[in-house]
């Protein structure tokens, strides 16, 4: 209590600094930008799923009045990709198209209508290749290959890790649970459709304004794809009308308009249609998974073997990272003595998948949390109790060498259990009503940048001048999550001023120091720490100058309520403005910097770079549902969710993120699916997105939202700014499995896949009525040729974070463990 009172800004519920401009519609998004003499761009996209381009004739289009430029694959000889290991994209396809929606040409014209008409009169001749639609079939070697890199056939990447000998653990376990789950793919559905405007200046430099979450990565990629020095390029991230991971990649349209602006000498703009946004995708991978878990007689986990198969779509994107993330975070919630993880990503002729809120982790979390429900039932334990008994300890190194600092998971579970009156409801409600519980965990920022370097992940510059105003410069991007407000709160807290007096300049590669971008829930923690450092340095300068004036030691000065004063003699203090004047007089023009780099991870094995984070956030949710056995309709009555935030810098923003996560989670649980239609192969090669529109791609509207009860668990984490951890992604994770578990509690039907739809409920109930088990879900997991796993002995088996494939060492590790067990 008293600790919190220390703060004047942090922890106080406030309207965000950008609240008014957002709510009155005055925020300028990329599509709001109009420049003099601006031209418009439209992309011609492939209407075939997989083909060789035989001929591309632009003569009719070129001849049309109002057409300024036509670009094709020939204009983009260099490939790019967000990850250094997957440089497999071209701004416009050359030789080959890989999905319906892959762009083959761009028209730049006086207006959108002309550009669209011209794009339709470009003639492309294709030679069809076999359509690869099913990820299981994509495993087979005789399917037509999408890329000539990757492992073999259409296998993009396979991974295998063994943290201790799991088979041995399972063989020794009282129970072994084996389940197969399927998590359907879905997309971000941000309200703002991607838009970009590029303009060249007379010196031949070019500026790109874009709805991007990661201006720094776009900057680098543009330089590569356009073969231009980075010094010639400036990228400005406009405020995003929602991102959720959908704007973290580098997009072909960004590269195209930048090139076009340079070629035309006039600004060029593109605004994608909603359908095109579905083709940009980079959303949730469809994941088929198998989980084998060993459980002791008293309900402790002894080991887990997780296998995942990801349908990656047509390009690499962030896919290799997504593949790692399907396994990396499983061990941070519950204590897992041994862990084995195999993952495989394949290419198919669909829009590329990538990172969506939770990036790769919601799928296995869904499986594990349902499996825990099954385990609890079998062991006749309360699923909340079962979880409480196995929650991981704070300050621990997990089996896969992730360093957990604070962990508020047990408190989260206790809060939702109490708030929802779980004990009165679970297994006690009448048929048709039920409650389900589930948990989740997420990173507060990835431990590594996507390209290897030793520089800070986030930088902040602070400018103060005699007007008393303070400006924060930071490369971070406000995507609606409130990151500008975070900067303002932190600087205001340190300098004792009001956040409304702090201006923020963000996301501009020419003006702001590098921040890696708004992804991996890294922004509050990393920019926050950088901002604290910059602000403290500024405070020291001001304190020194004021201390000299007041003739008191600088350390005793307090910065609060817009004043700088000695608490022993408050009346003799000066205003903040006077303090700045004193410092500017004393030191000259004022400016400070701060930066942040995450701690060095403990993992030393190859691939150990995915998963480490300065801090992990935790959530638990109880979902209360009603399931109508006649219609299969699932009605969510209420969601209770507790989130371990470390510290809420602005509780209103934090709760907004929690409710937003619940909203997105319910959409994924109940209706959202990015699915494709394969026409009868005898009649057609077509493979099309089933519903690329906001009406037909079903997601909840605000009217479909139940009440959400939010509990914030505040247990400050030493690595977070004022103790803060992430909230942007974590609260989504428990929702889908909690819904599935609640449905089971309501009608006794197990739906081991999302979305959980009325027809699946009815099928499950029918099956049960006929004496079946009442389960809807995938039957089995395919046989995949896994590579020899990296063997990494867990910390408690003598491991040091290195992998070993030496059988002697493996045996030694096991012996070490046996020694310890016999010794204890």
């Amino acid at each position, binding site marked *: 209590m008293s600790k919190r009172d220390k703060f004047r800004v942090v922890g106080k519920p406030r309207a965000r600094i950008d609240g008014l401009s957002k709510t009155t519609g005055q925020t300028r998004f990329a599509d709001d930008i109009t420049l003099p003499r601006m031209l418009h761009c439209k992309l011609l*996209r492939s*209407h*075939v*799923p997989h083909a060789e381009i035989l001929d591309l004739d632009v003569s009719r289009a070129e001849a049309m009045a109002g057409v300024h430029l036509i670009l094709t694959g020939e204009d983009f000889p260099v490939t790019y990709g967000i990850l250094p290991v997957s440089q497999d994209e071209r701004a416009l396809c050359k030789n080959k198209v890989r999905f*319906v929606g892959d762009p083959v040409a761009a028209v730049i014209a006086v207006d*959108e*209508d002309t550009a*669209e008409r011209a794009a*339709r009169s470009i003639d492309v001749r294709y030679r069809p290749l076999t359509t690869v639609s099913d990820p299981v079939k994509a495993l087979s070697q005789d399917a037509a290959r999408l890329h000539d890199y990757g492992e073999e056939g259409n296998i993009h990447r396979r991974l295998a890790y063994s943290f201790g000998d799991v088979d041995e653990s399972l063989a020794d376990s009282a129970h072994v649970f084996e389940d197969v789950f399927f998590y359907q793919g879905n997309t971000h559905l941000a309200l703002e459709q991607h838009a970009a405007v590029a303009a060249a200046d007379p010196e031949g430099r070019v500026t790109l304004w874009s709805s991007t979450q990661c201006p720094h990565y776009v900057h680098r990629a543009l330089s590569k794809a356009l073969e231009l020095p980075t010094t010639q390029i400036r990228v400005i991230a406009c405020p995003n009308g929602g991102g959720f991971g959908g704007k973290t990649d580098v997009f072909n349209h960004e590269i195209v308009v930048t090139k076009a602006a340079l070629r035309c000498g006039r600004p060029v703009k593109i*605004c994608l*249609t*909603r*359908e095109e946004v579905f083709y940009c995708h980079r959303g949730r991978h469809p994941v088929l998974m198998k989980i084998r878990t060993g459980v002791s007689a008293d309900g402790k986990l002894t080991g887990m073997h997780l296998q995942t198969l990801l349908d990656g779509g047509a390009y690499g994107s962030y896919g290799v990272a997504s593949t790692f993330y399907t396994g990396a975070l499983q061990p941070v919630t519950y204590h897992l003595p041994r862990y084995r993880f195999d993952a495989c990503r394949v290419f198919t002729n669909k829009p590329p998948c990538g990172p969506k809120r939770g990036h790769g982790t919601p799928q296995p979390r869904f499986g594990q949390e349902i499996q825990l429900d099954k385990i609890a039932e079998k062991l006749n334990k309360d699923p909340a109790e079962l979880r409480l008994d196995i929650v991981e300890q704070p300050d621990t190194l997990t089996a896969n060498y992730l360093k957990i600092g604070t962990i508020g998971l047990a408190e989260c579970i206790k809060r939702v259990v109490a708030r929802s*009156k779980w004990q009165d409801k679970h297994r006690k409600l009448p048929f048709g009503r039920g409650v389900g519980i589930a948990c989740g965990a997420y990173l507060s920022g990835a431990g590594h940048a996507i390209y290897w370097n030793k520089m800070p992940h986030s930088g902040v510059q602070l400018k103060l001048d005699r007007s008393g105003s303070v400006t924060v410069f930071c490369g971070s991007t406000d995507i609606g999550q409130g990151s500008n407000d975070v900067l303002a709160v932190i600087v205001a807290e340190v300098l004792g001023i009001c956040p409304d007096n702090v201006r923020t300049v963000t996301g501009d590669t020419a003006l702001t120091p590098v921040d890696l971008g708004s992804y991996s829930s890294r922004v509050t923690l990393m920019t926050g720490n950088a901002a604290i450092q910059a602000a403290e340095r500024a405070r020291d300068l001001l304190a020194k100058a004021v201390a000299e004036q007041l003739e008191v030691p600088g350390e005793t000065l307090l910065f609060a309520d817009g004043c700088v004063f000695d608490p022993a003699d408050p009346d003799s203090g000066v205003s903040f403005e006077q303090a700045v004047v004193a410092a500017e007089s004393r030191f000259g023009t004022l400016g400070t910097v701060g930066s942040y780099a995450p701690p060095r991870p403990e993992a030393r094995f190859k691939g150990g770079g995915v998963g480490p984070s300065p801090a992990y956030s935790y959530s638990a949710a109880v979902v*209360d549902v*009603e399931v*109508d056995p*006649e*219609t*299969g*309709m699932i*009605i969510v*009555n*209420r969601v209770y969710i507790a989130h371990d935030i470390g510290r809420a810098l602005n509780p209103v923003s934090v*709760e907004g993120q*929690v*409710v937003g996560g619940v909203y997105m989670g319910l959409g994924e649980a109940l*209706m959202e699916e990015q699915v494709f*239609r394969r*026409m*009868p192969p005898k*009649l*057609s090669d*077509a493979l*099309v*997105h*089933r*519903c*690329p*529109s906001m*009406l*037909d791609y*079903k997601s*909840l*509207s*605000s*009217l*479909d*939202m*139940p*009440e*959400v*009860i*939010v*509990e914030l668990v505040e247990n400050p984490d030493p690595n977070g700014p004022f103790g803060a951890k992430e909230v942007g992604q974590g609260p989504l994770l428990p929702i889908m499995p909690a819904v599935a578990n609640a449905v089971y509690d309501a009608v006794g039907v197990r739906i081991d896949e999302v979305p959980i*739809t*009325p*027809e699946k409920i*009815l*099928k499950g109930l029918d099956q049960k009525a006929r004496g079946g088990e009442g389960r809807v879900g995938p039957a089995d997991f395919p046989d995949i040729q896994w590579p020899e796993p990296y063997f990494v002995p867990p910390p408690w088996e003598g491991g040091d974070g290195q992998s070993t494939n030496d059988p002697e060492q493996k045996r030694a590790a096991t012996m070490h463990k046996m020694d310890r067990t016999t010794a204890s």
Partner: protein
Amino acid sequence: MMRLPDFRYYAPQTLQEAANILADQGPTASLIAGGTDLLPKMKRRQQEPETLIALNNIRQLKEIGNGPGLRLGAGVTLSDIVADQRLEEDHRALWQAASQVATPQLRNTATLGGNLCVDTRCTYHDQSFEWRKAIDFCIKQDGETCWAAPTSDRCWAVSSTDSAPALIALGAEVRLVAASGERTVPLEALYRDDGALYLTRQPEEILAEVILPSNAKWRSTYWKLRRRGACDFPILSVAAALRSDAGGTVREARLVLGAISSSPVLCNDVAALLIGNRLSDDLIEEAARLAGASARPKENTDAPAYWRRRMAVPMVTWALKELRGDDMCDERRRLAGQAASMSHEPQSSQTTNEENPK
């Protein structure tokens, strides 16, 4: 942004003027009322009329007048209908249908005439030009195959109007006006069971008004199935209207299934079964089974045919039970996906949502 194709635009002040322009322009012209159906279809190049004739300046089409029952101008908006107390009380099926169309914003512009003429829908067709090119189009427009039923040579696009089943159950007629004359037909005669040519309206005809009989002794109801409560087209609907005598024996009955085939389906066999009987549970069950048997949906809406077929029986049951006087509030609430009020539990101090409007 998706762009509209070019078109000529007329905004006549009178019905006669509109009819003359329409006769003059021929089939390359389209009428436009609220435009909530037409404009998205034009953006997707499902329709590319050379001329649009706007009906919104025609005062006469916006009137709700008296007669034996009620006369509703085709230009009356769905919001006007929702706001009308006479309709809410005496023609409940229509009122319920109109209140469940799309969203409040769309209902403010969407008209009754436009709703009755709304294009049939299909997930293989309600797509952009480029998307349809990818599947090589279909019978409804520019193509040879019906992807929803590849062995069939007709289009099975789904009649997706909410108001038509309700108005057919209520025994409504429509007045169609052309430059050369006018005719009045029972509403069911406006529809044809063909997804491509779903209206019997002649190209030069304007739907001018809907004539409702005096339904003093009738009770009516409308039930709508959709994937998402807040906004979705129907994927199955049931409209029913009954007149019973003092003893509860059904004297007249009409039952219509909507959004299950290319036109609303008037189930005369179900009406015949009901007439002369009291609405016992057994009779309702038999009627529902009979009606359900005529539900043979294709896989071309945003929910699986399996679910739509299964839902016919319970929905007909609920409609008839409601007409019998049973309290069906709970079934309605669940069908709309709305949570039961949980007022016995403490309200959250931190985050609360408004209760969904019924």
